[in-house]
């Protein structure tokens, strides 16, 4: 079962046309000495047996656990239409729209996606997607380096630690000037960030809400960066932008983010997509593919890949990025998600996340010894201080089928956050689930 259609008779006919005696002969350009020394795989099977294997694995996938965890990836509601539409074969079995006339479906959708991202962030230009939130942040840093011709980067430590690792990895061989700035409590230390900006700084990188859940206004930071001719890069959580001031309203230069929460399944880590937007004047510095509007000979509107001269297949080592395949289908889902909820629904969704998280935090701080560490506003995540090591508490609650949050100790070993726990409450967490979390946490702490 290899999905190979040709019958033995056809194979013989084809070999005759080629003038070869056997298929083996076609492999004769490969010297004998180079032949495979082993190919020890199991025997094939049918769909039926395969699905039994897969079902067994999926059954041990932790989906019975009620998640109050985020860390950049969120358990959000996905309208049914998103699945149905994104699984149209014409979308998912096509490839990069190199031939625009027979790819207007993908191209127009990506143009609409770019527009959605601009509308979401209130910036002017977007590309057709990047791999994920972490790599988008790294690409933004590289982009800022290209724009400014500088090599230093100021990185807020309250940016998602996983994303920071990705950024550090991407920059490892290109810059030795990544300065991380510690938070002040659960807040980004805006003063310290400002102080860290210098004449070599290409960009200062922050996240909103930050990893602790705190929401900031980075307008002043943007002004400071611009004073030094540096850029402000904001990584943002798209769902929060239904409520929270978007990067464009803070005068940020580049906004990026993890797109998963826009209609993509958690799926144990991917595929998701990263988005990036910037000012119109920086469009030529964007990484990846960009779809642009144009017309055909008869004046009909259509869409094409544009500014391809920035890309690897033309510019090779001088390209703005190495990205080729991106996360088109995931971006399409993101677009459909925004269109399904629409202007009003998207706002309502954000408000609901906020309200549920507020309800949860109010209930949780009713527990003896528990308090919220965030000083200012939060969105749908907040950091609790517990009277015990957060790791132990999380392990205990997991045994009762609840993932209570992400313990911060491991991610911030130097900040004394062993007892701190980031709790996420999306719109999918019901009141009953929240109430149960409170009961279980109290039990875990006090009985």
């Amino acid at each position: 079962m290899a999905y190979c259609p040709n019958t033995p008779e056809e194979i013989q006919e084809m070999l005759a046309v080629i003038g070869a005696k056997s298929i083996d002969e076609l492999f004769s350009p490969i010297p004998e000495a180079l032949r495979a020394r082993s190919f020890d795989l199991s025997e094939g099977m049918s769909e039926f047996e395969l699905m039994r294997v897969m079902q067994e694995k999926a059954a041990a996938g932790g989906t019975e656990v009620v998640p109050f965890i985020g860390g950049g990836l969120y358990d959000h509601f996905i309208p049914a239409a998103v699945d149905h539409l994104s699984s149209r074969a014409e979308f998912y079995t096509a490839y990069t729209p190199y031939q625009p006339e027979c790819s207007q479906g993908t191209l127009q959708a990506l143009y609409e996606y770019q527009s959605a991202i601009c509308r979401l962030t209130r910036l002017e230009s977007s590309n057709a997607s990047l791999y994920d939130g972490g790599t988008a942040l790294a690409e933004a840093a590289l982009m800022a380096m290209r724009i400014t011709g500088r090599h230093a980067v100021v990185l807020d430590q309250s940016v998602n630690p996983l994303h920071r690792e990705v950024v550090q990895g991407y920059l490892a061989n290109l810059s030795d000037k990544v300065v991380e700035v510690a938070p002040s409590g659960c807040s980004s230390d805006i003063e310290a960030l400002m102080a860290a900006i210098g004449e070599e700084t290409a960009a200062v990188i922050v996240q909103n809400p930050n990893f602790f859940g705190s929401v900031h206004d980075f307008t002043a930071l943007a002004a400071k960066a611009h004073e030094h001719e540096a850029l402000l890069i904001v990584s943002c959580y798209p769902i929060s932008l239904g409520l929270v001031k978007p990067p464009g309203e803070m005068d940020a230069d580049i906004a990026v983010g993890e797109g998963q929460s826009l209609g993509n399944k958690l799926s144990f880590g991917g595929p998701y997509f990263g988005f990036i937007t910037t000012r119109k004047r920086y469009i030529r510095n964007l990484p990846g593919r960009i779809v642009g509007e144009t017309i055909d000979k008869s004046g009909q509107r259509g869409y094409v890949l544009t500014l391809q001269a920035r890309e690897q297949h033309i510019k090779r080592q001088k390209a703005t990025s190495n990205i080729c395949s991106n996360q088109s289908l995931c971006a399409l889902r993101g677009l459909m998600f925004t269109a399904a909820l629409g202007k009003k629904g998207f706002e309502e969704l954000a408000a609901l996340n906020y309200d549920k998280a507020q309800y949860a935090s109010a209930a949780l701080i009713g527990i003896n010894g528990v308090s919220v560490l965030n000083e200012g506003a939060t969105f749908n995540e907040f950091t609790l201080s517990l009277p015990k090591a957060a790791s132990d508490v999380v392990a205990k609650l997991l045994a009762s089928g609840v993932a209570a949050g992400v313990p911060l100790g491991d991610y911030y070993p130097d900040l004394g956050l062993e007892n701190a726990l980031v709790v996420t409450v999306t719109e999918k967490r019901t009141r009953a689930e929240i109430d149960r979390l409170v009961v279980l946490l109290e039990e875990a702490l006090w009985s």
Partner: protein
Amino acid sequence: MELIYEKSVPGRSGVRVPIADVPKVVGFPPELRRQSPAAFPEVSELDLVRHYTNLSRRNFSIDTNFYPLGSCTMKYNAKIMENAAALFANCHPMLALLPGGEQLVQGPLSLVYELERQLAEITGMDEVTTQPLAGAHGEMTGIMVIAAYHKARGEKRKYVIVPDSSHGTNPASAALAGYEIVTVPTAPYGDMDLDAFRAAMNDQVAAVMMTCPNTLGIFNPYIAEICEIAHQAGALTYYDGANLNAIMGKVRPGDVGFDVIHVNLHKTFGTPHGGGGPGSGPVGVRKELIPYLPTPRVVRKEDGSFAVEAHPEGIGRVSDFFGNFGIMARAFAYITLLGREGLIEVSEQAVLNANYMMARLKEEYELPFDTTCMHECVFSASRQLKDGVHAIDIAKYLIDRGFHPPTVYFPLNVKEAIMIEPTETESKETLDAFIAVMIEAARTAKRSAQELQEAPVTTPVGRLDETRAARALQVCCE
């Protein structure tokens, strides 16, 4: 077709969000609020469905058309893979990183581990990481691993060598890892000139990146020598596995002498291309390089259970978790379903189909490197050019006849390149139908260049003005 935004009607609403079952506690601070709502379209669910259903119909795709896009391995994407991957839709990856969480996600962890073992066996490498999210991402990861290796040995080498026929991502990825690029030309036999390569090699070279079979579809018989030459200079060898579909069970890059490899699950392993992604680009390495793989690693413990371990000497993370798991699940399903014999059959039939295509078309089209090909063959429209017909004109003509065009103008070292990769899942009947139209195109070129230049005429839009697009830079609708 109108844009979805143009179908928006103020006050119209789409999908309803979940109902609030909690009271509002405190309001959000006004100074942190966005000034006006994101201007997403206000459409009904039917508007939405009709718009995207009709939009989808404006695409060619594997499920509707033969799609012999060279270097992309547009094989059939088996439907069962979709079902298999969907089973994991609700698994939260963060669970795996929580204290006590590993036990709850043994299923997906085992899949990561087993897929890595399968890929290691297929490529002949010692260890594999599934973290990279696409082929180019794998390349970057692989070159970063190589950089870390040299660095650990106290060396800071400057160059990476690539052949001129290499895919653009190779030099771009190496540049991203901090290297300067040395490009070596192609010899008349269709692959990197061995002497030129030898001349370029020195102790400042960190690695050479080879694609084998290369983008001309040719298997380089000197590949082992190239590895040897590199190793003698202390350089490492990188194998771009985008074309692995040609050689499964026949050649394993690890056996040949490659140190690092990436594979494209969205090519060889039948996962759908999604209109440009998502893909997945796992990286395999030889034993000496294992320490530098990204963190974390999924390991199998003595008791048979699976754990997530930090990998402290590694290059860090190249993505958040274990890679594009949904794509990996499809590839795992594919490999498991086909098994050893199935994968060998894939490569044999892919090579048969490509050679048949080549044999039947070489009378009408210039074949710059006339030798047995592997999974794809590259023609040039140079003969047709004499009549004023470009590769692109032939491509557009094919669209009118219901075929997605082959890759054109790549590789860059072939003028007016037409790069055809039929893949193994297409039948002789489909190939014959395509060949007939290609021959017709060649004959039409002699008769009437204009007919080809005016194509396509059956599509919702005609040829689009790309210059205008690049000038107007209208990339988002106001």
